[in-house]
């Protein structure tokens, strides 16, 4: 089991946004998060990635297993595509970036500075970073933003390969990725109990 959440409640900016979330992901599984804008998908993903604490409930994530991809890609515009990837590869203790370049069709852009890429090309580079982390659990926040249809296919294929290799993926998205995966619609988990213990105003209510 890579992640296991039970009766999780999360807050953003001190306001509870989702509650009663329970899900689990094992090797080879993917879970797609859906929900309208502002529902709390980003907040949930940040919690799973360990960037913010949960409000209540339990969340177990395997140690050193998460590769997180947020809205921002964390690219250095002054470095080339290769340099950007190599940096992350060595941070995560991996050595080769060749597979990632090939899989996201970045070979021809390898020596371009990241700052001169188009929106979709940047995003492809951001996704290629996932491959060089070597981490089993991908936590992805709207990964296909500004990708064209061919690139969305590339991405779906990469996810499928990752799952086949024993990985798992937790993906928030608004579009159909063509993946066979469970879907968790967070709409029904909207927080109504404004007094969930742990909210930072709670002490004053």
């Amino acid at each position: 089991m890579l992640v296991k959440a039970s009766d999780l409640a999360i807050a953003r900016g001190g306001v509870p946004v989702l509650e009663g979330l329970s899900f689990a992901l094992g090797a080879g599984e993917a879970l797609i998060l859906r929900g309208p804008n502002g529902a709390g998908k980003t907040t949930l993903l940040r919690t799973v990635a360990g960037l913010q604490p949960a409000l209540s409930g339990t969340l177990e994530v395997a140690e050193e297993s998460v590769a997180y991809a947020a809205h921002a890609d964390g690219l250095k515009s002054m470095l080339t595509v290769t340099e950007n990837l190599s940096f992350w590869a060595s941070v995560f203790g991996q050595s080769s970036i060749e597979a990632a370049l090939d899989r996201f069709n970045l070979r021809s852009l390898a020596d371009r500075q990241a700052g001169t890429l188009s929106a979709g090309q940047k995003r492809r580079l951001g996704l290629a970073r996932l491959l060089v982390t070597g981490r089993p659990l991908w936590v992805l926040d709207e990964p296909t933003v500004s990708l064209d249809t061919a690139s969305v296919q590339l991405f779906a294929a990469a996810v499928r390969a990752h799952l086949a290799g024993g990985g798992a993926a937790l993906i928030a998205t608004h579009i159909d990725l063509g993946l066979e995966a469970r879907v968790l619609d967070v709409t029904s988990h909207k927080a109504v109990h404004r007094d969930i213990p742990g909210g930072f105003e709670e002490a004053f209510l």
Partner: protein
Amino acid sequence: MIALLRRDLALAVRAGGGFGLGLAFFLIVVVLVPFGVGPETPLLTAIAPGVLWLGALLACLLSLDRILALDWEDGSLDLMATSPLPLEGVVTIKALAHWVTTGLPLVLAAPVLGVLLNLPGPGYPWLTLSLALGTPALSVLGTFGAALTVGLKRGGLLLSLLVLPLYVPTLIFGAEVARRGAAGLDPMTPLLMLAGITCGTIALLPFASAAVLRMNLR
């Protein structure tokens, strides 16, 4: 870690920031002082050690917001926090990279600029020594300030405001070493204090910086 240091240095060089500009600012501050206070040589000689130290401090200060803000804005910091690197290591490396690109060139250039302000002869080795000992503390303290203000949009001035009081002891002892050296007095006591401050900050502050950073990322 080494990868991070290498990347930061590459970025400093590539972004056209790095080495050259910290130095250039130092140079400019030193050049502007006579315009402000007038060209009389004895006056300049009297204030030379202090001005050199102040200039180094301000040059350091001006590049502090580069330490973490860029990585914050483009999301790298979030990604690094979820990577195997410990945040303590990240902030230490960041401070080191800042020192190599800013502090070290200042140390090397200070004697040259001393000439402009008619620093007396015996002051040169002490000035260099005091800067070499003191600037690492400035970088480490600056990283702490940068970690404190990283969430805030363009915290540049806030950062200065937070960091400058922290710089006071380093400045006092550093300038005192240079001043005593220039006047031919014995600079041992402030030198030891300076060394103490530097060692202390290097040993302890990274933990504070990492903790603060973790809170800011939340």
